């Protein structure tokens, strides 16, 4: 039997791929860094959103030492925070379990690196090489298990929490770890069950197929609104953010499982939480908001008019920079009326930002117009009635789709922040009764109703 297994494994041959296919296949691994890149923006978003919700200005002190201190409205604060976390003393309590204390924070962070592998970032790339059609999937791991793999990996991230709580050998940390563990186990049930309806409709676990189904029919949020609500709530609970942050409720158990951690080990927890939010946002956007798909625009249509899509993307960017320009102008005026002592230096910063954005906005808009007139996606050939385009068209369309997916994910990231700064913390028993008595039953009823309706409407399956 062993030799047969070896025989079987030996027969798995390496795929024959061209250079461009290899480059794209390997380049796709860069997508694992997207959650990390998100974190930088999201911490800024969280701080500014929180401050505006609470009628404050938010962090705006850290500055780059040029042009009278470039503050970028507090964006620089992230980096000073990072420097602080990296340069602080990494402290290990005497009675902590040394190995697990050091290893545990990395587990959750590692999972954040692995889970982007199952997300379809763009539609499968197809292009005409001259003699045959090349095809590259939009996911790093194109497996039929799809989202189950992501759930399996994220279920392992609990061990990071549990072991850090146990290893730090503190009662509060252990209590926090137990709460986190119990809550994650409870909410994983309703999280998985709520998705069964959409798996039933799409007929696959593969996220690529689910997105393709949504592209062909309708977004998941319209056919599965209850599932969307249950999944969103469970995901907020999974990430352990307010109102479900009983695991680190500072008024009861100080800080929960990361109580004994300092410096970058605490930073890993902190960043892991944000990475978890980003992953959850991308997953929700993929499952319920059509993923990379643009509404009413199929991938083929997008490729046929990729010049318009690129021009619209660049135009949107230019408009956003223009909006930033107007915002800076307004802030300059506001600061002038404040009667501040440092109005001169701030004025220099605002003038610099105003000048740069004022130049960049027309340049990007001109680029958009140029793209619209100069690019011309011509179909290279037609196979079975669908046109196959050259490689650059596919890649440009993929870039547009990635931008669309990221924009949708940002929407959900904002919902996380918004909910956190609105709702107070649940009590622990309230969290449990919400998870087991309401969300689980809602998910079950939703599954049954979906199955009946799907049977009645489609008649098959």
């Amino acid at each position: 039997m062993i030799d047969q297994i070896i025989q079987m494994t030996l027969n798995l041959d390496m795929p024959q791929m061209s250079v461009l296919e290899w480059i794209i296949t390997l380049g796709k691994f860069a997508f694992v860094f997207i959650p990390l890149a998100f974190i930088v923006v999201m911490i800024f978003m969280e701080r500014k959103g929180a401050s505006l919700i609470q009628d404050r200005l938010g962090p705006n002190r850290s500055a780059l030492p040029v042009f009278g201190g470039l503050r970028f409205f507090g964006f620089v604060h992230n980096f000073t925070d990072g420097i602080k976390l990296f340069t602080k003393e990494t402290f290990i309590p005497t009675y902590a379990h040394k190995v697990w204390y050091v290893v545990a924070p990395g587990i959750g962070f590692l999972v954040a690196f692995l889970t982007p592998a199952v997300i379809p970032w763009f539609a499968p790339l197809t292009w005409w090489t001259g003699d045959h059609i090349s095809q590259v999937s939009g996911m790093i791991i194109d497996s039929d298990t799809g989202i189950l793999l992501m759930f399996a990996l994220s279920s392992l991230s609990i061990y990071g929490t549990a072991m850090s709580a146990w290893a730090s050998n503190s009662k509060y940390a252990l209590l926090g770890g137990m709460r986190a563990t119990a809550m994650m186990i409870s909410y994983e049930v309703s999280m998985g069950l709520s998705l069964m309806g959409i798996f039933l409709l799409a007929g696959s676990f593969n996220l690529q197929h689910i997105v393709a189904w949504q592209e062909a029919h309708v977004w998941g949020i319209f056919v599965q609104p209850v599932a969307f609500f249950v999944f969103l709530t469970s995901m907020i609970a999974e990430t352990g953010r307010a109102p479900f942050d009983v695991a680190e409720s500072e008024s009861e158990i100080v800080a929960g499982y990361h109580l004994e951690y300092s410096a970058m080990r605490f930073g890993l927890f902190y960043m892991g939480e944000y990475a978890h939010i980003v992953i959850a946002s991308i997953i929700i956007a993929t499952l319920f908001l059509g993923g990379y798909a643009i509404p009413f625009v199929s991938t083929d249509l997008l490729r046929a008019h990729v010049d318009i899509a690129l021009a619209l993307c660049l135009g949107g960017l230019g408009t956003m920079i223009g909006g930033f320009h107007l915002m800076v102008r307004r802030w300059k005026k506001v600061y002038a009326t404040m009667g501040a002592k440092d109005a001169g230096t701030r004025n220099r910063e605002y003038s610099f930002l105003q000048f740069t954005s004022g130049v960049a906005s027309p340049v990007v808009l001109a680029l958009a117009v140029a793209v619209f007139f100069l690019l011309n996606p011509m179909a290279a050939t037609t196979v079975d009635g669908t046109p196959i385009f050259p490689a650059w068209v596919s890649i440009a369309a993929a870039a547009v789709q990635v931008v669309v997916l990221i924009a949708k994910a940002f929407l959900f990231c904002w919902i996380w922040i918004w909910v956190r700064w609105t709702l107070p913390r649940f009590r622990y028993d309230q969290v449990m009764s919400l998870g087991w008595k309401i969300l689980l039953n809602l998910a079950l009823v939703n599954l049954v109703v979906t199955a009946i309706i799907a049977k009645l409407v489609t008649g098959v399956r």
Partner: protein
Amino acid sequence: MISIIYFSLFASIAMGCGLYLLIAKHPLYGALALIGNMISLAGIYSLLSAPFLGVVQILTYAGAIMMLVVFVIMVLNTAHDHEVPRFDWRGVYLVPVPAALALLLLALVYFNSPVADATALRGTAQNISQFMFDTSRTDNGYWILFEFIGLLLLGAMVSAVLIAKKRLSTHKEDV
């Protein structure tokens, strides 16, 4: 070639974790070793083109059941757990059972090696669902059995809840 490297890696991790489970002093380390064992087994399943099986292995066993085990160990974590001896003589009586099982398996493989059908071994989600739930098949569909097992588990869960509940209510009457 790369598969052999992966296989030997996973196999050695699984063996090492299994051995450590036997000799671990603290029950928590044993549980963690078991998790490592399960994850590497899932890797071997995936190597055998059965990724669904591997993922379900991680999801249910490593992710959920072992989490509960770790949870319970943490709740009941007391000082004397550290003093469990690594080996006691009662364990000797347990050695023949796995040894006999291993011998049996070896004999089975040696005399009557099962023919590994590559198509039947494929454990993708599609294959398994068709194999189990295809109602149009006449020979061996498993869906009725599956439903029965589901009902059985539901009954077990309800009775477990009832048992737990009863103790609570009697306790209340005592007070």
